[in-house]
């Protein structure tokens, strides 16, 4: 009895491990660096498992107008007085109601471009009422209006070797997402919140919405977008070197 059980268990474990190994390596290109750190390896295991096992197209739940809730503004609530490298420029832009704000889209794109808030507002938009899930443990629901990032990337023409989309912000953050999240229909460059312009405390004039990850991936105060073929951890400005998981789909 004992012998048979063991061989059956061994067969099952081998089978499951084989299937798991196949799923994990399927279509899985480059992974973020781990620097030999066991926590970063676990982050990558979660990232790889999500990419292998869950549908790339699935949408997050969208709520109704009545579900919209109060929303704390945390982190940088105004880059102008954050004492960062972008502070002075942001303060100048803010004085002119962001009329001179320009977003540059560069890197591995056929047509590098700069767009203003007015340009964004002229493009086809998407409005969605979604839940912001903060890594701290709280959540809030708001209505976001903006241009799907995929449309901007299409307009700029991403090159075939492109793999990551990197962002820099006016409060000196740098972070990136992969093309699956970048081209996801609910990933927005949002300029509207609850039917008004996004206020500065909530990341205005334009913030990112990456709905299938925790709140810290939805960067505020977007400044530049760079498309790349290799992973850029953002150095001292990025999540990884500050001890945070790059992937926050948890």
């Amino acid at each position: 009895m004992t012998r048979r059980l063991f061989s059956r268990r061994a067969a099952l474990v081998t089978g499951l491990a084989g299937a798991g190994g196949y799923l994990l390596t399927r279509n899985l290109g480059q992974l973020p660096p781990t620097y030999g750190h066991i926590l970063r390896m676990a982050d990558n295991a979660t990232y790889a498992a999500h990419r292998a096992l869950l549908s790339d197209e699935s949408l997050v739940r969208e709520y109704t107008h009545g579900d919209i809730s109060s929303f704390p503004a945390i982190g940088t609530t105004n880059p102008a007085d954050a004492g960062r490298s972008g502070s002075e420029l942001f303060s100048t832009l803010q004085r002119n109601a962001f009329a001179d704000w320009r977003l540059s889209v560069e890197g591995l794109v056929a047509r590098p471009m700069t767009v203003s808030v007015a340009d964004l507002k002229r493009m086809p938009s998407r409005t969605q009422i979604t839940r912001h899930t903060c890594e701290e443990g709280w959540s809030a629901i708001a209505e976001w209006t903006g241009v799907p990032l995929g449309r901007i990337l299409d307009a700029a023409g991403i090159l075939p070797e492109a793999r990551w989309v990197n962002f820099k912000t006016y409060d000196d953050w740098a972070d990136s997402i992969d093309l699956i999240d970048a081209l996801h229909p609910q990933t927005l460059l949002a300029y509207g919140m609850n039917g008004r312009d996004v206020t500065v405390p909530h990341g205005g004039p334009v913030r990112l919405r990456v709905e299938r990850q925790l709140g810290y991936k939805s960067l505020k105060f977007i400044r530049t977008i760079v498309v790349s073929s290799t992973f850029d951890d953002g150095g001292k400005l990025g999540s990884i070197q500050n001890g945070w998981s790059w992937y926050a789909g948890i």
Partner: protein
Amino acid sequence: MACLALAVTGYVMLMTHPRLYWGEVGNSLTPALLELPISRNHQHGGWQGQEAILDGDPSVISANRTFEIFNQNGWGRSLHFLAAWIAVLTGLGYLLAGVMSGHFRRHVLPPTAHLGPRHVWVDLTRHLRLQVPRATGGPDYGLLQRVAYSVVLFVALPLAVVTGLAMSPRVTAAVPALSSLFGGFQSARTIHFAAFVVLTLFTLGHVFMVATTGFTRHMRGMTIGEKR
């Protein structure tokens, strides 16, 4: 090891936002179901720039947080998930082995005939008087012991795993039913905490029983095997 890491990092994460809610939404600007005085974040340091952010509903507000909070979630969350991978994979192996070997049926699940009030009362009063039989060193578990093990193995642990997944924005996007099953993200978080409390109390009780019913013999049974 993995479960200890899960408990500790889970507690560290709760310290970052020690408020529990019900439903989808809960934050420092909305009422809490339960506030735990377990870190300095428990008492808010103040807000500025409070304003209404939705036309027609002045109760929907925004405010800027003006104070630095305790937050060790960077390593806390990554270690929590590393431990979760280990605990879930070994746990599945254990469940599979337990079902196939008949260990659960024969030794763990309480026999239905013994679940009547008389049997439970007898075992309960014996435990309360600390008249517990000495360790047998084998899986000859008593009635209350079986009930406790069953609750932990088949209710609390699976619930902890499933509510954990129900808090993931990526997983619930793919499996929306997971979130609605518990009534929303914050409800899942609250139930996740309840499972932690049950498992922690079980562990304390378990260690107490081990220590009072023949510590050396138990340790031998759990590691190198029973003395013959």
